[in-house]
């Protein structure tokens, strides 16, 4: 069985996120996220504030709901998954195997995301005794969870809590302590509406909050209690119960939060505060999109997020077990989320519905600021509400982001920036958070330091002082006729007492034995002991050393003429030459030897690349030292070799040896070496670039990785049970070596031309790095200029206003305030407020687009430079004209110019569908492609849904008509039309 396809870039949106202690490590919490069809476990490192992905697992199904729960007394959370499989899955994260293991999988229905098959909603009893899974309509199933004698999780057969003709809007497990597990659901019964032709019942029927109780003694579920709601609810939040709180639920309704509980507890109702002087449509209701609960032994609070992205902190005041008051306070504004998680380490993870996901540190809980706190006790007029002023972050500090391309509207792949490889121009995001992302295949590289050197070096190495040291002590740079040794401390300075030969170039250097250093230069080898004693070996007369291979106990050098000399370190720390030498049939081009494996005293193979386009494996075993074992012919002479021995995942079993061969024709060959016979097998080839490939050993995630340099640099590393070979988004490198210091644990020191650079790769696993250009509205279509590397695009949004309209609204509101003032003093105050209103413009990319009424549309046309992102031309369409389509046309009446046609719809209402016609804008593109001008606007009877060029004319689709237009001076001229009947 072979897996034939793995996506290069997995889904980037996060639909569900739950937090818990999935690894079972004490005081550590991870977040489990569902990205469409993959389940991912991420960890927010409290020290660095960085997000790490621990595990990514494809489930090959649609994940619709996730819930984390734990059995009482346990310290490890399980994940329950509701999917499109018609089954409930309980997963446990196994840290040692780094995967989610399926513990239970219970089938209850058909596959698919269906109306009555559960999977949409998932809720668990807070004590982990039962779990409820529900569908959008009718079906709800309860499973009892328990543990057997060996403390393994057990699951019962399902108990039904179905109710026909009932829609479900939300579900939550009520915290009732250790009484019978209870679930609360938001239900709407439509049976009577379906049987009532007059439509009267539709107005009368109310949504109900229904409590289901699982009787653990009788082993069945009863519909305990249902209470009608005055406002439609969409979300339920469980309030901690038992020892920790008053129990009950908060129902998030349109405009209100309502606390409800069983028994004689009266409802507590509190309006959701609104933004002061908001430009949004006044008829819009406000609703809560998601919530997060924080609970410790002493206190609990909720963070709820409104549709506009504003996060409120909600607290409950209690008198013994009765809730007396609900308090709500503006906290901060973050991107509108699908899910929020408050972690015990003080982080807030926000899985944004569109755009990048954010991780914030909660700097303070908003207890001691001057933000007003609103209470359910405050008297309000009917229909009146609280107001607050949105502001920049005060309680949260952004620490990290996970990039997301969702929603990806359109892409174009081309090499517009004139680089080696094409870029992906991706239009993504929605509303004011929209972006044009330029994606390049490659890992993002962070540059730690760049320093200039006195000449052009040709090699660089790092050397430790002692084998037990964590960090490197020296950087050795080799020039054409000199060697420079730098000492790494707080700063990097030249070291003069290193014992190296400074007047010769260096061929190789390394730490040898426990604390000695070895320098190989063309005339010999210099073994520098820690007490500064120096032993030297001289190359035989008239021959020089051309290549060498080193590890901690072995030294192999290649002399000109193709002879190999081999040395081994003995017990006293002395290098001993092996009596025989090995003559090869050509010049030695490269050599490599793996590190001494753990628990052994030597590496068993030496690999040599020879000028007759072969690579040879030579034994270093004491029984047949320097005996040839195997060889492989290559398509081109080898440039570089790197032998790597990697132990298997669990540290047991046989290690595998890989030989990486960089060829002079720019290919990388990767071959497995048989650990017994030294045979080469299973060769894989990959083209890396136009220059000879050189290979360097570096460290990534505490494992050996290979940095390959050619016309581009590549990194071959092992990550999440897979090998990744990814280019680096960085100028090409000459020579590199691994680098470890206090500031940079896993870096690379590299040379290009006359500079020495220290770089590090952080965002492992990523296939693309992105350059972002911000847009104003949701991008819809783009056309690329055929020669000028510019992109012209249309951006359109429903239910929003144009800049002009927003300014007008601001002015109107300000004028209203001024006109309300009666006396001189009031007028002065009103003028001040009005002035403030005219000048405060919230950054829409942070605070969200202004939401207008339906049928209000805003659109812009923009021309930007693909390489720099500079906006060359910008045109805003009048209010309510929605740009739908665009194309590039060369009219045959105007053969020497390029025109861009933008088709629009006017005042479209989505439900029920209506419109007020359409129009086509004609823009003239300048010859150099860096500017456009409006030529004319052609009105049409119906919205224009598609435009295309057709034999030097424009083919336009209007409703059920196809029409051909010719270019005219004042407007486009209709030439012929075809009406399609069947539409």
């Amino acid at each position, binding site marked *: 069985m072979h897996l034939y396809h793995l996506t290069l870039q997995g889904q980037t*949106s996060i*639909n569900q996120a739950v937090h818990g202690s999935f690894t079972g490590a004490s005081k550590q919490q991870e977040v489990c996220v569902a990205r*469409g069809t993959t389940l991912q476990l991420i960890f927010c490192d409290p020290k660095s504030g960085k997000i790490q992905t621990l595990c990514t697992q494809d489930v090959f199904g*649609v*994940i*619709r709901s996730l819930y984390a729960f734990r059995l009482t007394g346990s310290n490890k959370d399980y994940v329950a998954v509701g999917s*499109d499989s018609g089954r409930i899955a309980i997963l446990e994260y196994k840290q040692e195997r780094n995967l989610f293991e399926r513990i239970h999988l219970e089938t209850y229905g058909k596959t698919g*995301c*269906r*109306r*009555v098959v559960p*999977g*949409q909603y998932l809720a668990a009893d807070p004590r982990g005794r039962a779990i409820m899974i529900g*569908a*959008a*309509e*009718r079906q709800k199933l309860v499973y009892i969870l328990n543990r057997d004698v060996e403390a393994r999780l057990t699951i019962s057969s399902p108990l039904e809590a179905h109710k*026909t003709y009932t*829609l*479900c*809007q939300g579900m939550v497990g009520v915290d009732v302590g250790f009484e019978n597990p209870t679930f609360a659901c938001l239900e*709407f019964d*439509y049976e009577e*509406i*379906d*049987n*009532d*032709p*007059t*439509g009267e019942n*539709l107005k009368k*029927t109310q949504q109900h909050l229904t409590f289901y109780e699982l009787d653990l003694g009788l082993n069945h579920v009863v519909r305990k209690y249902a209470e009608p709601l005055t406002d*439609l609810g*969409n*979300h339920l939040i469980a309030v901690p119960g038992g020892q920790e709180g008053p129990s009950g639920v908060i129902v998030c309704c349109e405009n209100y939060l309502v606390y409800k509980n069983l028994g004689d507890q009266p409802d507590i109702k509190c309006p959701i505060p609104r933004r002061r002087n908001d430009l949004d449509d006044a008829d819009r209701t406000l*609703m*809560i*999109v*998601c919530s997060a609960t924080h609970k410790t032994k002493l206190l609990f609070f909720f963070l709820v997020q409104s*549709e506009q992205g504003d996060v409120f902190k909600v607290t409950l005041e209690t008198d013994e077990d009765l809730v007396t008051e609900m308090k709500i306070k503006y906290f901060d504004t973050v991107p*509108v989320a*699908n899910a929020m998680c408050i972690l015990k380490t003080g982080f807030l993870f926000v899985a944004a*519905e*569109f755009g990048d996901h954010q991780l914030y540190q909660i700097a303070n809980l908003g207890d001691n600021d001057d933000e007003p706190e609103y209470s359910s006790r405050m008297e309000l007029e009917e229909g009146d509400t609280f107001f607050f002023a949105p502001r920049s972050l005060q309680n949260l500090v952004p620490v990290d982001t996970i990039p997301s391309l*969702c*929603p990806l*509207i359109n892409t174009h792949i081309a090499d517009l920036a004139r680089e080696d490889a094409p870029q992906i121009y991706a239009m993504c995001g*929605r*509303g004011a958070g929209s972006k044009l992302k330029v994606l390049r295949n490659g890992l993002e590289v962070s540059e730690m330091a760049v320093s200039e050197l006195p000449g052009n070096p040709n090699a660089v190495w790092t050397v430790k002082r002692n084998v037990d040291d964590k960090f490197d002590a020296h950087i050795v740079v080799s020039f054409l006729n000199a060697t420079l040794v730098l000492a790494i401390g707080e700063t990097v300075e030249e070291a003069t007492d290193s014992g190296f030969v400074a007047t010769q170039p260096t061929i190789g250097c390394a730490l040898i034995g426990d604390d000695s250093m070895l320098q190989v230069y063309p005339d010999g080898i210099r073994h520098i002991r820690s007490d500064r004693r120096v032993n030297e070996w001289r190359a035989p007369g008239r021959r020089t050393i051309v290549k060498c291979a080193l590890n901690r106990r072995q030294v192999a050098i290649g002399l000109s003429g193709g002879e190999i000399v081999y040395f081994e370190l003995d017990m006293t720390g002395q290098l001993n030459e092996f009596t025989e030498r090995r003559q090869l049939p050509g010049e030695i081009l490269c050599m490599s030897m793996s590190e001494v494996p753990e628990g052994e005293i030597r590496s068993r193979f030496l690999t040599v690349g020879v000028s007759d386009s072969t690579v040879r494996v030579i034994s270093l075993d004491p029984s047949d030292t320097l005996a040839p074992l195997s060889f492989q012919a290559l398509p081109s002479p080898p440039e570089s070799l790197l032998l790597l021995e990697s132990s298997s995942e669990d540290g047991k079993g046989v290690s595998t040896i890989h030989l990486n061969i960089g060829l002079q024709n720019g290919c990388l060959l990767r071959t497995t070496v048989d650990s017994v016979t030294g045979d080469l097998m299973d060769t894989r080839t990959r083209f890396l670039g136009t220059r000879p490939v050189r290979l360097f050993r570096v460290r990534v995630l505490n494992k050996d990785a290979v940095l390959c340099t050619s016309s581009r640099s590549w990194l071959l590393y092992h990550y999440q049970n897979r090998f990744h070979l990814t280019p680096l988004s960085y100028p090409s490198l000459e020579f590199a070596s691994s680098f470890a210091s206090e500031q940079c644990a896993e870096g690379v020191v590299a040379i290009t031309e006359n500079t020495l650079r220290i770089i590090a790769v952080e965002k492992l696993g990523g296939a693309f790095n992105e350059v972002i250009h911000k847009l104003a509205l*949701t991008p819809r279509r783009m056309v690329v200029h055929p020669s000028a590397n510019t992109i012209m695009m249309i951006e359109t*949004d*429903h*239910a*929003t206003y144009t800049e002009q309209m927003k300014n007008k609204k601001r002015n109107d509101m300000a004028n209203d305030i001024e006109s309300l003032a009666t006396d001189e003093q009031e007028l002065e105050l009103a003028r001040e407020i009005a002035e403030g209103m005219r000048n405060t413009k919230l950054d829409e990319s942070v605070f969200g*687009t202004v*939401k207008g009424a339906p049928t209000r549309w805003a659109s812009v046309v923009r021309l930007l430079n693909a390489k720099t992102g500079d906006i060359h031309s910008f045109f805003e369409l009048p209010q309510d004209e929605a740009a739908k389509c665009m194309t590039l046309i060369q009219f045959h009446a105007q053969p020497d110019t390029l025109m861009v046609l933008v088709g629009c719809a006017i005042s479209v209402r*989505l439900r029920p569908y209506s419109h007020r016609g359409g129009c086509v804008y004609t823009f003239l593109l300048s010859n150099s492609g860096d500017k456009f001008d409006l030529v004319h606007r052609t009105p049409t009877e119906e919205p224009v849904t598609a435009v295309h060029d057709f034999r030097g004319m424009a083919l336009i689709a209007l409703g059920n008509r196809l029409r051909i237009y010719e270019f005219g001076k004042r407007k486009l001229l209709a030439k012929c039309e075809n009406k399609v009947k069947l539409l």
Partner: protein
Amino acid sequence: MTSSAPTERFHVLAQLEHLQSKYTGCGHADTSRWEWMTNVHRDTYASLVGHPGLLSYMAVCEHESRARTKFNLINRMVQPCGPPPEKSPLDDD
């Protein structure tokens, strides 16, 4: 043979009834146009809510939050095609 025919017919009928009670929206010989339309709409809305990608698609179209889109779609399931037609006195029951 003759005696088994009515029981078999009865058996098929019972099976159908069982299916109809098990699967909401399962049709029968007397399904009206309104019933069929209403069921198709409810199924569609439930599917839009159930597939995360489709819900995002709708949310981008309408320029609303995903939560609002889901809320609207489920509320629309209550009566997607208007009230049922008046029952004609010629119909049974």
